[in-house]
């Protein structure tokens, strides 16, 4: 997962695991789109991250910034935001 370079942003391993689980659970199916992205960008998780940032009207940086991580930690529904239960 791309992380901003700011020194003051301490993204812990736990944060990274939370973010990865969040994206894999709730941004399902964007792997297909990411297939295209993968060829271009090579990182399906970054593609999911961009989708999540776009869904929540965050700045679409493709990086796990503070605002994004903050939102990922909020209690929520487990139904995917993008894609669906198969």
């Amino acid at each position, binding site marked *: 997962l791309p992380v901003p370079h700011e020194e003051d942003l301490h993204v812990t391993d736990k944060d990274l695991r*939370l973010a990865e*689980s969040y994206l894999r*659970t*709730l941004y399902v199916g964007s792997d297909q789109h990411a297939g295209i992205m993968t060829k271009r960008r090579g990182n399906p998780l970054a593609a999911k991250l961009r989708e999540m940032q776009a*869904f*929540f*009207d965050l*700045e679409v940086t493709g990086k796990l910034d503070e605002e994004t991580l903050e*939102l990922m*930690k*909020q*209690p*929520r*529904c*487990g*139904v995917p*935001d993008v894609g*669906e*239960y198969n």
Partner: protein
Amino acid sequence: VFPRNLKWSHYNLTYRIENYTPDMTHAEVDRAIKKAFRVWSEVTPLNFTRLRSGTADIMISFGTREHGDFYPFDGPEGLLAHAFPPGKRIGGDTHFDDDETFTSGSNGYNLFIVAAHEFGHALGLDHSRDPGSLMYPVYSYLEPSKFLLPDDDVQGIQSLYGPGYRDPNPKHPRTPEKCDPELSIDAVTELRGEKLIFKDRFFWRQHPQMTDVELVLIKNFWPELPNKIDAAYEYPEKDLIFIFRGRKFWALNGYTILPDYPKRIQELGFPKSLKTIDAAVSNRVTGKTLFFTGDKYWSFDEEKQMVDKGYPRLIMDDFPGIGEKVDAAYQRNGYIYFFNGSLQFEYSAWSNKIMRVLRANSILWC
């Protein structure tokens, strides 16, 4: 709605509560579930009947971690529940993560609020990007007794099933559109360099480095504050903002509401007859805070913590041209911005005159 507009082909739906959470009494769970279904039956032709045995359209259960549908829960916090779109077998089924604490109140997670959201999925609604909607993915507490289904959710469910016959509350709350040319606002304040623009149960957060404003529910930041406020101002010397609603006001230090608040505005020296504050703005140069109410305003000395003598005065005597009432106000770089309806007046504190008249929504970069 979900891809392929998944919906039930019949309108008389059944549900069954298969088990209970230990957090609440069975009667409380039954009540919350029933009330959650009523949210949707009031705005559609759908009917919900409870079964006590056998298979219902919507099977409701509490479980933890891997609970039989290959979509495991994640322990306390995080994911609270999920539901499956309309369909046979698992279709419509709704599962609650029993590692959470479900309640009938504001502590833990209110079962009625979570269930109403999940039943939206069970009926065919996907997540909404409207932060004021029930189908927004992130949980926010709403007082169940005052709950009104937001318009965004009504539009969604009625696109699948049409309207009901007996909507007891046809006035469904809408999320304010920031670039609505008729936008009027409730209150504005600065907060540590950001600007907070309040409207109904929301505020827009505007950060100088951000390219767009962010719409947030007041209760997501400050659950103890009311759903709508009258006035707000920042007193940077003490790193505080003050929020006013009716005769009450709160002091906030960032996310934290100071103890001993809310207090009554009469404690600031206002007469008992004063019921609300319409707007408030603090002038760092003079150390005075101006409070506007009706067609009058007061000057308050923050150091002495008392209302200045000779007040109230008429707004139109000292701020000619801004109208007879003020909805909101804030100060920046020697100007005071007064909001009145869909207009805002840029007022120069030096030359004591209006420099520009703008649309209220221009504060939101519209």
